[in-house]
């Protein structure tokens, strides 16, 4: 290939156009999707890749997909070698070739220009249900991928711009909410088509060679910056350990670890020696492990810069196959983010002491996803899936954030109470900061989690859930205390019966039962005794800590609080 040079102005304009394109894809998806998981929780992402499958732009969605696109598209390129034509669109949901779990449907469109592939557009979205053993497809006690629904590992859903009727029929017959699934599929296809149009405009205007070279330049310059940031850190190997609270099948603690090495301008995350894949579905496959590690590398080197493959070139992830972080077929991965978040946090914990300006103490970590299913007012089945927001850890100079979404998600909204009540046979009794559970004390304290109470108005309702950090608490830093746990409680019999759950596949609910989801507070940073008096006073005034706590934890002597 003859190289062309791209002047800096054109480079800047093309980069701006890439971002504008992935943003546009995101808007179309969020506004037209039919599953709450997508339109409200924004559990989807869109990206653009080079003809070799290297990510050049990604919308600002969630972190779970930080590294998955490249592996996924490369696997498809390998599979369809030379057998792609203009107007084809591919579909895959294979967790073991760069994917995540079967619920995530990836739609990939090769973008042709002058008869050759210029790049790929991708849209990955979490489907409300893809069949399998339970509504929503994510049995917290699944022991095999075959319980987790329909798998379509690399098929042409569209040929010559026409949908494959056979595939639509297969999907329609294998999922619980076919209208929603097919509606979302239509929306996904619309987004990759928009992307193809925009890329064609770009290549028409600037020339295809210039656009390809601009991709190369973008990746190279991100790589240079990434290497420079890593080179600035002290060489050495940094260790961290953690415990995952059960896998959904048993409650046994699972000990996990990492060794992160900084060597010049390279960073190596070594996950060797972690336990083999567990029976339950909190395993993640290698693609998700990549993503989990990259999330922290991005946080370390350039949190605000647009994401692309270049940032991750200095990173090497080492792990033997078949572990909890590198699961293989047929290990279940439905709740993979419950495992992959611990891979992220291990790297985070190992690096936090090195770069306090970029990190915080431990957070509530788990998305605390609860599924509520049953029949609505008209007897139709419904599933309500919702991750919960929680408390984040303190940093060196600021208290932790209250009630924001866990690391694995991102631009993820909580569900409006008024919207839930208009749609489902549910009444929300409270949505409040989890003051009672508290946070990790410290010179800077952790942020507060939430308490959300659902009263079930219908009969035959069932809940299931998989919450992490129910026993192993968010860690504190530099003498800060640990945070507080996550838990689901079922309150029945007018409050006389309270049962607590972490990961549970089937909780039958009666009319009038209250499902209380409690998320934990983050870890503290620094010695609580050094917390400034006015900050303790302010917390007392706002009812975030009691006077008793103020004196016991912070040595606060009551004076004039007002």
């Amino acid at each position, binding site marked *: 290939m003859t190289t062309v040079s791209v002047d800096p102005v054109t480079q800047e304009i093309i980069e701006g156009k890439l971002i504008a394109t992935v943003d546009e894809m995101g808007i179309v998806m969020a506004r037209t999707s039919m599953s709450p998981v997508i339109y409200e929780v924004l559990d989807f992402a869109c990206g653009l890749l080079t003809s070799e499958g290297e990510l050049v732009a990604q919308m600002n969605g969630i972190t779970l997909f930080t590294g998955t696109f490249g592996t996924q598209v490369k696997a498809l390129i390998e599979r369809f070698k030379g057998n792609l034509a203009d107007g084809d669109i591919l579909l895959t949901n294979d967790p073991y070739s760069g994917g995540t779990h079967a619920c995530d449907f990836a739609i990939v469109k090769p973008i042709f220009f002058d008869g050759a592939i210029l790049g790929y557009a991708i849209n990955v979205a979490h489907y409300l249900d893809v069949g399998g053993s339970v509504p929503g497809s994510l049995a917290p006690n699944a022991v095999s991928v075959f319980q987790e629904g329909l798998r379509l590992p690399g098929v042409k859903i569209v040929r010559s711009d026409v949908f494959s009727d056979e595939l639509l029929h297969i999907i329609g017959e294998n999922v619980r909410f076919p209208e929603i699934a097919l509606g979302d599929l239509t929306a996904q296809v619309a987004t990759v088509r928009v992307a193809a149009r925009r890329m064609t405009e770009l290549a028409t205007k600037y020339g295809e060679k210039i656009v390809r070279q601009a991709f190369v330049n973008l990746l190279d*310059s991100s790589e240079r910056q990434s290497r420079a940031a890593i080179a600035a850190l002290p060489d050495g190997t940094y260790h961290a350990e953690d415990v995952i609270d059960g896998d959904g099948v048993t409650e046994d603690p699972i000990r996990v670890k990492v060794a992160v090495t900084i060597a010049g301008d390279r960073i190596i995350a070594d996950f060797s020696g972690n336990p083999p894949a567990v029976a339950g579905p909190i395993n993640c496959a290698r693609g998700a492990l990549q993503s989990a590690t990259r999330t922290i590398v991005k946080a370390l080197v350039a949190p605000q810069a647009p994401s692309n493959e270049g940032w991750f070139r200095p990173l090497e992830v080492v792990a033997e196959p078949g572990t909890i972080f590198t699961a293989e077929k047929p290990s279940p991965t439905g709740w993979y983010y419950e495992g992959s978040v611990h891979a992220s946090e291990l790297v985070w914990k190992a690096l936090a002491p090195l770069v306090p300006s970029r990190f915080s103490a431990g957070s509530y970590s788990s998305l605390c996803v609860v599924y509520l299913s049953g029949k609505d007012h008209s007897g139709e089945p419904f599933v309500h899936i919702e991750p919960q927001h929680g408390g984040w850890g303190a940093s060196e100079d600021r208290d932790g*954030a209250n009630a924001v979404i866990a690391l694995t*998600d991102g631009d993820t909204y909580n569900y409006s109470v008024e919207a839930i009540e208009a749609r489902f046979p549910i009444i929300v009794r409270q949505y409040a900061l989890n003051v009672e559970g508290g946070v990790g004390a410290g010179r800077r304290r952790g942020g507060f989690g939430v308490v959300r109470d659902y009263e079930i108005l219908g009969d035959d309702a069932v809940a299931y859930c998989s919450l992490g950090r129910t026993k192993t608490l968010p860690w504190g830093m530099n003498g800060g205390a640990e945070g507080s746990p996550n838990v689901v409680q079922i309150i029945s019999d007018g409050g006389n019966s309270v049962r607590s759950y972490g990961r549970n596949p089937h909780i039958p609910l009666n009319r009038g039962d209250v499902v209380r989801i409690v998320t934990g507070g983050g870890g503290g940073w620094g010695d609580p005794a050094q917390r400034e008096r006015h900050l303790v006073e302010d917390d007392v005034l706002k009812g975030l800590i009691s006077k008793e706590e103020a004196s016991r934890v912070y040595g606060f002597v009551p004076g004039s609080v007002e």
Partner: protein
Amino acid sequence: MIRLATDVGGTFTDLVGYDERTGEVFTAKSLTTVKDQSEGVLNAIAMAEKKDGLRSRDVIFFAHGGTTVINAITERKGVRTALVTTAGFRDVLEIGRGNRPDLYNLQFHSPEPFVPRNLRFEIDERIDARGNVIRPLDLSGLKPIVQKCREFQVEAIAVLFLHSYVNPDHEIQCARALAAALPHVTVCASHEVSRQWREYERTNTVVLNAYVQPIIQHYFARLEEALARQDLTCPYYAMQSNGGISTFDQATQSPLTLVESGPAGGVAGAARIGQVIGATEVLSLDVGGTTAKCSLIHEGRPTLNSEYKLEHTRIEPGYPVQVPVVDIVEIGSGGGSIARIDERGVLKVGPESAGSEPGPACYGRGGDRPTLSDAILTIGVFDPANFAGGTMQLDKSKAIAAIETVAKPLGLSVEDAAMAIIEIAHANMINALKLVTVQRGHDPREAALVISGGAGPALAARLGRDLNVKTTVVPPHPGIFSAWGMLAAEPRADFRGTWFAALSPDAVEELSRRFRQLEQEAVAYFAKGADADIRFTYRVEARYKGQEHGVFATFQHGDTQETFGDRFHASHERAYTFRLPASPIEITGLHLEAVLSGPVIAMPRISDEDRSVDAALRGNRDVYFGSSLGWLTCPVYDRGKLPPAAVIEGPLLVEEATTTTLILERQVLEVTAEGVLLIREQTAS
């Protein structure tokens, strides 16, 4: 018989007046007085009296736009505000939506709520999603709340109960009781400001409304008093964010509707220009000192943004508010935007701005970093000796020295570096203009591009060429266009509500009935009697069953399920590229736009006495057109002397007091009978 408008901006207070009888035009630009904006308004009036012979006594209409509301919010200078809400939900305001758009920032925080936790109170009551009371309102809980409000010297209280958009009874009772107990405190219930669902967004809306209400009340009182002292007594109107005006009293009830008052003036002006040149699709772009704002006028009416957020960026969630705001996309590219080379060696322009102090390097006030204005001066578009009508001398050598700081590292000549700065600002503006058109399903090729602001007309021709618009338009008074636009705005009110129903013949009838009811509310609002000439536009928000977000489609009395359904499918396809003809349709909301017909600024024909192309020619100036064309000699014309129907081939420059317009090679300038400048491509048929 003078109609007068003043627009208080961040730096300048602009004034435009127009005498309906004589056709005289009055203009002024004075410095904004930050502490009390009414002083700057009086200064501008005094200036226009002195300069153009404005007669305050003859003013029969006064429209006002300003930044009082937005400043109080962005500077956190509203009053101490409390919140009373449904038991169990006082933290909703603080939790917000909990999203973390700054994905990789492990120290991210949600924006601080405007009411601290100790001033957020709960009352026992509950209404369900259908409006049924499931727990009665217990007003006995108010006593300690009233006590606390006194103790903390609360000046405003916002009231929000869940589902008050369906049933506001509890809010009404509670607000009444609070007002009775605390007569000097402003009390504001959410249903008075928004009838839309989503508790966080509505809470935030009512809280911000309460937070600024006493501020705007005092401000209007001071302004009215000051105007009366100047013998300027007539109905006073405020420019609202929806592109219309309201009386001061109406605006005081719902001050949050003033949040984008100034920019909305520009949009109203662009709509008026569209009428004059016969264009119903208009793209407006206003290039200010720090930002550029663009907006689309569709079918002759400004489009509204249904999800407006204050302080929202790519990485900040911002504060959503449910008030009707013209859909404006704002980007950090203005005349003062600073060019720099980033850590990767790439040239960036904005969002950092030199503002008005120190301003661009060429202002000679100590700025030494290159800005967009310096680049425009360097390539020869601005005349350093005759800027701002000759009131300000620009220092070209300082501009060149500043540009050199980026030219050298890029290995470019000074003029190529200046061109590069312009191109990058230009690309940012194109992206924003495409966001409001192409990305929302509108074709810019069908639109006229109306460009205003100090630096706008210098960039206009190239933007128009790139977007391939029908015509590029430079309106009269482009440097004070928002104020001009306020004279084009009519009284307007928007009535929006949440209502769910499957689309059916019955639902269509019910829509019609509900719109009739809203029409009655509009008639009452304008208080001009049942025969008032009010123009209604009916819009229904609907979605395919299963979707969450709706699309607005126009509705007409007499619609059937089929006629409305067809319009909905078409709207959905335009916005999101596809339709699902087999899916059932659900209605989610109603929106009535009500505009009270009123006089708007006339655009009389300019006379051709003393005007001719020859008389308008001031001389020539060399302008740089990029490396392929190089420097070309352009004739320079005085806008005030160009005759109606003049047609001149580019390249050329047109100068006026507030700006300079550049017309490119292969373009033609046409002056309309009203003196509006139209730029078209020569080869266009």
